[in-house]
């Protein structure tokens, strides 16, 4: 793979690492019995969905931005 392609593919790599980390955090929040777990898990789920929608689904391309 050329260096240019590596750079182009990097947003996806960053996103999947972020998603993996957030999934690990939500699992730990659940098993550790953190107070207000429902709130934290909801926030984490919204952030994860946001990462997928913005990075993987190119939401902004609908509004004129070019998908990467």
């Amino acid at each position: 793979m050329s260096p240019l392609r590596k750079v182009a593919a990097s947003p996806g790599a960053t996103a999947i690492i972020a998603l993996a980390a957030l999934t690990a955090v939500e699992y730990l929040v659940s098993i550790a019995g953190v107070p207000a777990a429902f709130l934290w898990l909801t926030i984490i789920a919204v952030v994860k969905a946001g990462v997928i929608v913005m990075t993987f689904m190119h939401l902004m391309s609908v509004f004129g931005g070019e998908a990467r």
Partner: protein
Amino acid sequence: MTAATITVQHAPPASRLRISRVGLWLFILSESMLFVGVLATRFTLLGTDVHEAVSQQIGLAITSILLASSYTAFRAEHAARSGDRPGLLRYTAMTLVLGIVFVGGVTLEWVEAFHDFPPGTIFGTVFFTMTGIHAFHVITGLVFLAIIYAGARRGTYESDAWPVEAGVKYWHFVDVVWVFFYPALYLI
């Protein structure tokens, strides 16, 4: 043929692509209503309770698999845009395999669930409804991806990558739904 159809067919390619994207997002939005309704039903019936017999290991494993499949789907779409046919085939195949493993994981969970919380119980009804509707969408996405794979083998998407983009977006949507279903079924 309606006037709107004629207008879309005669629109410049860039406009057609934008119209197609808006149409797909509207479809995704309408599908979301179904899942929001199911999620609302789950919290109405069960509050924030989760059945203790639900398998945390399987839940975490299938969630990780589905997230990984979103990455390979993203790479498949990227390969299609770059005209990288071997990459498109490779990443689409990987996404298909991960999707099939996910469905296998859900099936395994169902076998255990039938003993621990049968469909007649409140949690069982909620669990089988949520995972069943979602699994049906995963299977639909797998069919879509299989069609993309077959098309990519024939070189169909070398001039127009929109079908790949549409199929991959649908796959990501299925992933987004699971992002909310996973904590609702396993963690809260």
